[in-house]
């Protein structure tokens, strides 16, 4: 009897394996097809053509290098000149990351199955986050600059909106992996929804929230630099001037690039240090 059933289990499983392999193969060929066709489409629409353009890829870095090399001694003074506008850019990024992640925490808790206070609202909240993510920061910023006038505030609001949407999605995925047992424990003592979330969920997910928020902060530094190009101030405005007026100002551009790179490195190191502390405190 066992022999018979083992044979049938074996053939059933082989059937399943064959089906999975078929799906896997189909997915793989679809992937290859999309890759190739996507590349070919992009290449055909490109004004210059990918293959003709590729040898020129290093022209801009070479120009920057050529402009900077004879004026290396001026770099420290460039750093000093642009440091205040870097601070402004970091400020915009920091405020918008904080505002955005606070909104994101709230949205994510409302959008996670199993945690949401009003399960019926999960869909609408998710759509709200989709809308927040759908509009490029630069579009929101341009509209706000038109209404409120140029400056850091429109940039801040624009970035905060986008941050809330994208962090909200990431946070709610983190929430889904949270262990529900502590929350059940808190329910059993009669805790309110806010208490359950704050005391049961947040301690579990805080390290993950933190690393996503820091990553988002890095992205926002870059975003607020880009918004400087459209009149939101900060280091982006200086970079636009340094790059577009060409003619020997590439050394300024180089200084700004170095500043931006150093900023990212500093915050990356800082975040891994804080994250280690946060996790090891829980461990021991």
């Amino acid at each position, binding site marked *: 009897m*066992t022999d018979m*059933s*083992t044979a049938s*289990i*074996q053939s*059933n*499983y*082989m059937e*399943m*394996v064959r089906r*999975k*392999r078929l799906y*896997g193969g189909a997915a793989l060929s679809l992937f290859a097809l999309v890759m190739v066709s996507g590349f070919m489409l992009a290449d055909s629409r490109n004004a210059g053509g990918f293959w003709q353009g590729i040898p020129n890829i290093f022209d801009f870095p070479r120009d920057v290098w050529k402009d900077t090399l004879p004026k290396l001694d001026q770099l420290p003074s460039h750093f000093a000149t642009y440091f205040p506008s870097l601070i402004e850019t970091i400020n915009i990024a920091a405020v918008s990351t904080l505002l955005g992640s606070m909104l994101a925490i709230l949205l994510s808790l409302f959008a996670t199955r199993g945690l949401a206070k009003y399960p019926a609202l999960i869909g609408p909240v998710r759509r709200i986050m989709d809308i927040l993510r759908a509009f490029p920061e630069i579009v929101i910023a341009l509209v706000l600059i038109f209404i409120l006038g140029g400056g850091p505030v429109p940039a801040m609001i624009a970035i905060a909106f986008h941050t809330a949407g994208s962090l909200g999605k990431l946070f709610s995925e983190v929430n889904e992996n949270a262990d529900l047992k502590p929350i059940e424990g808190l329910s059993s003592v009669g805790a309110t929804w806010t208490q359950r979330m704050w005391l049961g969920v947040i301690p579990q997910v805080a390290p993950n929230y933190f690393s996503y928020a820091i990553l988002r902060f890095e992205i926002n530094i870059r975003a607020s630099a880009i918004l400087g190009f459209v009149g939101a101030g900060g280091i982006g405005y200086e970079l636009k001037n340094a790059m577009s007026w060409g003619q020997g100002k590439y050394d300024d551009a180089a200084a700004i690039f170095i500043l931006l790179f150093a900023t990212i490195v500093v915050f990356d190191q800082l975040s891994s240090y804080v994250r280690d502390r946060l996790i090891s405190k829980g461990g021991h």
Partner: protein
Amino acid sequence: MLSIDALTKQFGEKIAVDSANIHVDKPMMIGIIGRSGAGKSTMLRMLNRLSDATSGSIVYEGEDVTHLRGAAKRNWQSRCAMIFQQFNLVPRMDVVSNVLHGTLNRRSTLSTMFNLYPQDDIHKAIDILNRLGIAEQAPKRAEALSGGQQQRVAIARALMQDPKIILADEPIASLDPMNAQIVMQSLRQIHEEDGRMVIANLHTLDTARRYCDRVIGMRDGRIVFDGTPEQLTTGVARDIYGAGADFSEAATSTEIETLDRQKEFA
């Protein structure tokens, strides 16, 4: 066959295993007992080369495996299977795939990445599952199984390796008495029918007594007892566990019969 000489493992200041000597001349079922923190797990992890020994040597059939590196080390690991307390299966993969992981060492990385295994191996995996009485679970995800079933999947993975030695680190510590018995009987059966050496860390005395041919007692990293189950008197057991006169074997038992016995005494 297997000889362990002056094997030592040091974590900073702390000595987890203190110059252990074990010599085994024929395949047998060996139980290692002792309190938690006595160095039992560290010992098995060194044998499997999951962690490196600080000093000393492990020699298997004339081959020194203590300092193997790279492919040679992975090959040794494939010959020396390990079973864990928490099963250590991949929860989201199906049972047969988990069993097939036992063949990873002899397959190419690329084919295993796409889960491509030969049909013979798949059939063999299901035969092994059948031998352990869980063939019906074959297509399910490992996480959907009960603890006892998961541990039997882990044993099937070990058997799929076709190893000379099976190491079991507290294989029944997370299981209820009924499942514990099934798992221990499977290990014993594997030893008797296939002639494989089984070394199991156990935290209950009566399990060691009942299933093992030889018992090794460890305390604070040292081997303090090495003999047959008959030589393991209550006095020796008290010594191993560092317990006082109030220590009773029945109190740590997981056997259903022992509980009955206790009731009779009461």
